[in-house]
């Protein structure tokens, strides 16, 4: 577990480094940029396998993960969040200290919700949906559609004894 020790000793430095590398890698080219938001890339982590698998069976499977999980209000915000969340994900993946059950955070939920509305504004045009003002309206998409991307059956299949 040298990685773990390294991380624990130099957490800050590693994070800053990770951030820079993240942004740099992402900046290398639009191909890399696109790949690093794709189901194939995100799903390459153990922690993401379940979500990638369920997503692949959803009505939205043609989308990129980042279409929902990163803010799309402007490019700077997008890049910043991409670096920031990518850093956190990498940190926990390396430490392997993430919980058995990863649950989306309330900020994460808000981001996703904004993205629903980004694509489906027209659909919601005639009903009460003050998104952005508060999630406490018809605009709380996840109240009714939380299983749209990853199903709601989280049964994961067994652990194999080989």
């Amino acid at each position, binding site marked *: 577990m040298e990685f773990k020790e390294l991380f624990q000793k130099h957490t800050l430095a590693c994070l800053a480094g990770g951030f820079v590398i993240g942004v740099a890698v992402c900046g290398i080219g639009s191909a890399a940029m696109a790949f690093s938001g794709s189901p194939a890339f995100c799903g390459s982590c153990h922690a993401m396998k379940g979500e990638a698998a369920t997503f692949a069976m959803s009505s939205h499977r043609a989308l990129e993960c980042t279409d929902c999980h990163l803010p799309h209000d402007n490019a700077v915000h997008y890049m910043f969040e991409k670096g920031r969340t990518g850093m956190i994900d990498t940190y926990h993946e390396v430490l392997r200290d993430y919980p058995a059950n990863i649950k989306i955070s309330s900020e994460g939920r808000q981001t996703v919700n904004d993205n629903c509305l980004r694509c489906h504004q*027209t*659909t919601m*045009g*005639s*009903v009460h949906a003050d998104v952005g003002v508060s999630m*406490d309206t018809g605009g*709380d998409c996840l109240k*009714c559609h939380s*299983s749209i991307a990853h199903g*709601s059956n989280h049964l994961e299949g067994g652990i194999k004894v080989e």
Partner: protein
Amino acid sequence: APNDTSVKLAKIPQDKQLGKEAYKEAYPLEYNSFMKNNDTSPSPTGYGGAQAENSHLTEQPEMVENFKGYKFALQYDDDRGHTYAGEDFKNTKRLPGQKGNCITCKSSYMYDVYYKQSGWDYASKPIDEVMAPIEDDQWFGCSTCHDPETMELRVYQQGFIDSMARRGIDVNNASHNDKRAYVCAQCHNEYYFTKEDGRVNHPFDNGLDAESEYEFYQSGQAGAFKQDWIHADSKAPMLKAQHPDFETWATSVHADAGVTCVDCHMPYMRENGQKYTSHWMTNPLKTTEESCLKCHDESAETLKARVQTIGDNTFKLQRIAGKTVAQAHKTIKAAMDAGATDEQLEEPRQLVREAQWYWDWVAAENGMGFHNPDKIMRTLGLSIDKAHQCIEKTNAIMKGSL
């Protein structure tokens, strides 16, 4: 924008705001779906439904005994769609002799005309006088739930507003989601008319379950109001429970998850890629796909079967409770016939009052258990126990006195 097809707020002429007709052109999807409330198809579970003359009294004959001496023994039907609210009201055999307070939950006329003029005054005037000016189209129109100027939801039934305020809740500053429950809750709840000025009030102060509401009536919190009637057989002072749909839902799993009446009974529907709110407030199993399946992954069949099971379990106990209560009234009557005194029968009469309250709380509720299974079943268990206690107590008295 040219492609913007979103609904535009329409100006409804003031003199037409209480009706429905004037909204037809501006809001066709909502209007047309509201008119589906005229549908009278049976309930998918067999509980509830919307047929005329769907009589509780025929379905559960024990009710005739339990309401003996009260108007509910004359006619007591299952509720129908909102478009029938005026018609069914005017035709019910329970109407003669009632006061104006009865129209409180049948249209917004009481508010936009009477209440705005002179508060609760209408409440204690004779019903004939109060309902005379209301035109057919003015019973249960769009203004019943919407502010006609803004089309925002509105909660204006002052009895409900006051009763919620006593619980520390300002319904008009509630979240939008909560309003999607309160707009229904202002009518779909247990109420009584105060003896003092006939206004509508709700026994919510101690909590939203049958026991807390019973305590409200027992403790004098209802002021001079003590009973709805004296039972013809047992001479017990009885309470009538009315549709505690709000109270039942309020502590349910669905309420916990922020799921309101509107989410199930008025699901979003689609037309031309746009959503609108269905205004056919009916049994949601008639629209399972839209009402349930967005949140639930189970199949429509599985969900329906579950609602049916809960309903069957509830109805099984409801019948046992209702029949035992009926027997309790008859047992007290037999004791009276055999010479038991009012003093001796004091406790049995309290017991049958309480037992019937619990039974009626469920029988009058409209979800047949589904809105909150374990709460409803607990209430029925208490009813069965109290009704039998009444019978045993009465028999013990008789044994002594024979």
